[in-house]
């Protein structure tokens, strides 16, 4: 009996394995897009996939005589799955480019594979500084936390008029980056950091942390949490009456993520954040992008993850055009470095040395526009390089 179960199982296995034969074609250009499509970061995956598909719909799938094929894989935010998927894409599907990477550990895990196989890796979401240094084949089109945090610290000290701030970040790579850079810059500008709190990633309740902040009585609270958790922080902030106690909420744009902002309610009005992209960015390019995105995705508003995906696709397409489809991974990589173009977020430039993104960081305030809540830009710091590297 048990023998039969087992024999049938192995029969199924062999059938399944052998049916996955892959035919390599010379005239296709394959992009392996690895994203978290399920699990906590699923909204990231969804936004980026939608943006990538939008780009391909708008620009066609024939570039430099080759047919572009997008292969989407779900890594469920588990880094060793990301690594295995990347390895399979490179070895079996023979992809020309790896892209996506929803969280920092996924990107870091895949970097050695990019190096070993000489495949360019376009990071569209993950935001820790050190990622571009993990492999010479990594190019980033998302952003880095230090870019946003440093800009926020500058504004907070100067125009925000804050002297004492408490930082509250999620306890993982990007969070620690955000905390460190905000702290250093804010103290450099003459302020004091009363307390630095780190919240575990798996946290159902922000209440005790915010209570601690309340008791510390600062002028401002700087927050970084991964996109998706911003709403919870906002709610707790208001529930504890912190705005009435004179504490201003500031942070990187992840807490007023366009994906969720409109549902946060009027309590979010007036929150100031620093980020590289707002759906309300008043440029013609962005208006077209937002409209097309909404149309293709049942009215879903694009957020900064989507723009990272959209721009990532553009970088790939432009590089392919420049190399005319010749040359291997290294040629493609070189064509990605130094690209400069107008993105929906504003002007954008891939630094040839660091392979990281250089763009404007906008200071935005949450306001009601056209009946919906938006991050409305009121100030800008131009061409911000990643401070995490310029040391």
């Amino acid at each position, binding site marked *: 009996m048990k023998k039969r179960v087992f024999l049938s199982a192995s029969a199924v296995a062999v059938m399944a394995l052998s049916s996955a034969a892959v035919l390599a074609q010379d005239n296709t250009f394959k992009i392996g897009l690895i994203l978290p499509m399920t699990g906590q970061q699923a909204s990231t995956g969804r936004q980026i996939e939608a943006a990538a598909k939008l780009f391909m719909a708008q620009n066609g799938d024939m570039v430099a005589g080759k047919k572009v094929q997008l292969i989407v894989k779900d890594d469920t935010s588990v880094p060793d799955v990301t690594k295995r998927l990347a390895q399979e894409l490179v070895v079996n599907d023979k992809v020309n480019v790896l892209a996506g990477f929803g969280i920092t550990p996924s990107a870091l895990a895949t970097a050695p594979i990019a190096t070993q196989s000489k495949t360019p890796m376009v990071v569209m979401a993950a935001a820790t500084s050190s990622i571009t240094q993990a492999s010479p084949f990594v190019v980033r089109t998302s952003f880095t936390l230090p870019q946003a945090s440093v800009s926020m610290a500058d504004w907070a000290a100067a125009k925000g008029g804050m002297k004492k701030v408490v930082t509250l970040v999620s306890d993982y790579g990007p969070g620690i980056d955000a905390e460190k850079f905000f702290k250093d810059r804010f103290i450099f500008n003459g302020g004091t950091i009363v307390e630095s709190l780190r919240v575990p990633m798996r*946290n*159902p309740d922000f209440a*005790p942390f915010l209570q601690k902040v309340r008791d510390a009585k600062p002028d401002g609270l700087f927050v970084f949490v991964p996109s998706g958790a911003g709403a919870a922080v906002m709610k707790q902030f208001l*529930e504890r009456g912190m705005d009435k106690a004179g504490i201003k909420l500031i942070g990187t744009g992840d807490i007023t993520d366009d994906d969720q902002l409109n549902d946060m309610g009027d309590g979010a009005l007036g929150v100031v954040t620093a980020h590289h992209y707002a759906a309300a960015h008043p440029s013609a390019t962005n208006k077209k992008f937002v409209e097309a995105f909404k149309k293709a995705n049942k009215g879903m508003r694009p957020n900064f993850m989507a723009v990272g995906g959209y721009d990532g696709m553009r970088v790939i397409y432009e590089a392919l055009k420049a190399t005319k489809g010749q040359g291997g991974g290294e040629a493609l990589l070189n064509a990605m470095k130094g690209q400069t173009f107008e993105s929906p977020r504003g002007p954008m430039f891939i630094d040839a040395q660091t392979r990281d993104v250089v763009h404007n960081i906008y200071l935005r305030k949450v306001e009601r526009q056209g009946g919906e809540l938006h991050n409305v830009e009121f100030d800008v710091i131009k061409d911000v390089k990643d401070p995490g590297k310029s040391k």
Partner: protein
Amino acid sequence: MLTILFDGIAYGMLLFILAVGLAVTMGLMNFINLAHGAFAMGGGYITVVLMQRYDVPFLICLPLAFVAMALLGAVLERTLYRPMYKKSHLDQVLFSIGLTFMAVAAMDYFMGSSQQIVQLPEWLKGRTELGEGSMMLGMGHYRLFIIAVCAALTIALQYILTKTRFGSRLRASVDDQRVAAGLGINVNVVFLATFAVGSGLAGLGGALGAEVMGLDPTFPLKNMVYFLIVVAVGGTSSITGPLLAALLLGIADVAGKYFIPNFGAFIVYFLMIVILIWRPQGLFVRKGGK
């Protein structure tokens, strides 16, 4: 300080409402229903949909969530769960996890994977503060509301359990199913009703908790551990057991994160392990109960 105590109590009561259904089901039917979290999620999503799409006021959504999940629970009990009672515990675990996966993926498909935001009515958004400085007691109105509702439910449950005939039938079935059936108690009906009420309570808990604990399709998977902790520590043979366990858990979690933020998450697990090693049957066991 007092505020933390208050927050912990609110969180604990919420956990209790979510977990009490599980405790009773496990004690009564000896069925490990890991899909309990999915009922909670269902209640949360029903509330969100009703409020966002049909503008139903929050207060009405709560009983609706309860009723909807109770009905769903009753239907599922009769159709899917009943044949499962005879199966081994491991099979039950497999089955309920399978149901949970299906529910999670279905919610993802219909509602999307981002966090759902509940817009509370204005009168629940405020905050009252008594006292000064470190002795200040800040009470968010919503948490007050949660405590009030849960306290009322607890009293109601305890009343039903101890003073009504249904309650005594339930207690008899928990203590010894065969003898109860032998005495003429319709055990099937007791099961059905209990499962329905338990699921309804989970739905209500989910609706209340969406604001505090966040609501997204991974809700059951994230929080199942907490419910199990409440049931394990509180025991499955009474209502007061899980209640006290939930309160203890809530306060420990909140206080731990406040006083020792670096190790806040540990505190709960550590406490649980210590308690369970000291009292393996759970903290509160009725004499003669399971």
